[in-house]
């Protein structure tokens, strides 16, 4: 996927006139390839601001990584997108988050509906403990009332498990408990479950941090396979992972006011080899975080 590179001044203090937002970014994604638009997003826990004024475009069928030190609001930002942030008491978000042209925070929109189109995989694998592997994957379709036909469930389960590269390993034990799998398998199960709702965006919040290196590699491989059909946004504190896997990278850090803000964003290759911001360079070379 090619993007048009707008020529910008190397001097980072100069903001490009046409840029709608202040952070350095290759904002030149053509509109048709943008699936999610974030503009001036703030997030709060009660009176405390944890995410400040973030504007970002997420490209379709690509993996975008959000990196940064802890406390920079990466996970919070992610959770704002599928409206999981507000689940915590006294938490709220402001600003514009547009998905395919729809303002996700519009009053008329039911948060549950948002979450059916934008899937999420958590840091800690969380298969339903009281359900079998089969039921875990079928669950979202079941309680959203979407199972069609007698074979609807088993077709869906097989399809999702195949997409999550788990089918071969579990096809003979579908009725066993979801928690009887290894960590990496459980996480792939959770991915399969998220895919069962046929989302087209998948949010992944540090999906590998609770897994061993081999399982991590499997998940990373899976992500690259999935991006052909889905848009993936992954939060990770592992820079190497971001460099390996993602097409675009956004770097967040905590400001003096304790809120996270966007420092720089662009194609992964460039961010890691020719970062525009000093902070980015410092983070990437390990000088902080």
């Amino acid at each position, binding site marked *: 996927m090619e993007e048009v590179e707008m020529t910008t001044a190397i001097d980072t203090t100069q903001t490009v006139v046409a840029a709608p937002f202040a952070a350095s970014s290759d904002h030149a994604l053509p509109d048709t390839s943008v699936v999610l638009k974030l503009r001036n997003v703030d997030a709060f826990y009660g009176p405390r601001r944890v995410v400040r004024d973030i504007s970002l475009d997420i490209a379709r069928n690509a993996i975008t990584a959000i990196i940064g030190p802890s406390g920079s609001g990466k996970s919070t930002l992610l959770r704002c997108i599928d409206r999981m942030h507000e689940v915590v008491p006294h938490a709220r978000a402001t600003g514009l988050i547009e998905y*395919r042209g*729809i303002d996700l925070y*519009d009053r*008329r929109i*039911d948060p549950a*509906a948002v979450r*059916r189109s934008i899937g999420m995989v958590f840091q800690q694998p969380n298969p339903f403990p009281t359900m079998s592997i089969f039921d875990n994957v079928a669950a979202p379709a079941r309680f959203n009332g979407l199972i069609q036909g007698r074979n609807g469930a088993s077709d869906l389960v097989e399809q999702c498990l195949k997409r999550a590269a788990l089918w071969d390993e579990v096809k003979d034990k579908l009725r066993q408990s979801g928690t009887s799998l290894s960590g990496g398998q459980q996480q792939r199960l959770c991915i399969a479950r998220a895919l069962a709702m046929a989302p087209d965006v998948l949010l992944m919040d540090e999906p590998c941090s609770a897994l061993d290196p081999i399982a991590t590699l499997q998940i990373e491989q899976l992500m690259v396979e999935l991006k052909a059909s889905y848009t993936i946004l992954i939060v990770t504190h592992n820079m190497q992972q971001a460099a390996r896997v993602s097409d675009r990278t956004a770097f967040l850090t905590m400001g003096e006011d304790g809120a996270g803000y966007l420092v720089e964003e662009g194609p992964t290759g460039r961010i890691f080899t020719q970062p525009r911001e000093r902070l980015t360079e410092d983070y990437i070379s390990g000088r902080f975080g």
Partner: protein
Amino acid sequence: MVAEYQTLLKPTSRSRRLQANLVVILATVATLIALVPLVAVASYVISQGAGVINLDFLTQDPPGDLSATGGGIRNAITGTLEMAGVATLIAAPIGILVAIFNTEVGGRIGAASRFIIDVLAALPSIVVGIFVYALVVVAQGHFSGFAGSLALAIIMLPVIVVSTEEMFRLLPRPISEGARALGFTRWRTYLSVFIPTALSGIFTGLLLAVSRAVGETAPLIFTSLGNNFFSTDMNEPMQALPLLIYRNALNSAFPAARDRAMGAALTLVAIVLAFNLLGRWLVSRRRLARNPGR
């Protein structure tokens, strides 16, 4: 935009939305149903009892004959407060010591002790009355305010033990480790550090225990028995508000008895509420002090 929303965002089907709303409605209705009796009792007691209470009512003793008008509930008020006071004097130190024991001693013995306290907490109050009757009243040969206090103390004990144990468990680690590092022996630490720090919490537990004891009737029926005359002698049968209410309620066919019962009920509720709210207020103040501005 709404049309796009319908196709793109998989809105919740109507039946599921109805289900979700139904639960909200049911839960709200259930809560309101539960609150109706509270409001009803409160308003009844206040409306019926308020007119009865006046200075005479609070400072005179009841007439010998329940059906006679006039008189008051003085002996019941003093009896209640006196027995509750003695009960606290008995139960508080024992309760705190047992709580220390339970916190410190692990293994089988500690578990057994905690278990027995749990069982004690679950005893019906009338059974406690029987216990004290069998042991004290029979031995002494007569009913007494002391026996009543003892019964109340037994009822208060598990409440105090559990809430004090809770307080000790919630003590921040730095305090405990700090005392250790200064060379205090474990048990000395309790006296000089833990108890003073946990004092307000322990006090709250005491208040809640007292508010419970003050409202109890059953254990007093065959321990302190009740008394028509004014008496502060712990060795004599003693009157208490719940007992007075009970006896007058059973005779509520007589308007005088009925009024007396209502006035006494309002007085009792006021006392219980006072202790209860004071305890809760202390809890909230402690919580605020610990987390300012959160």
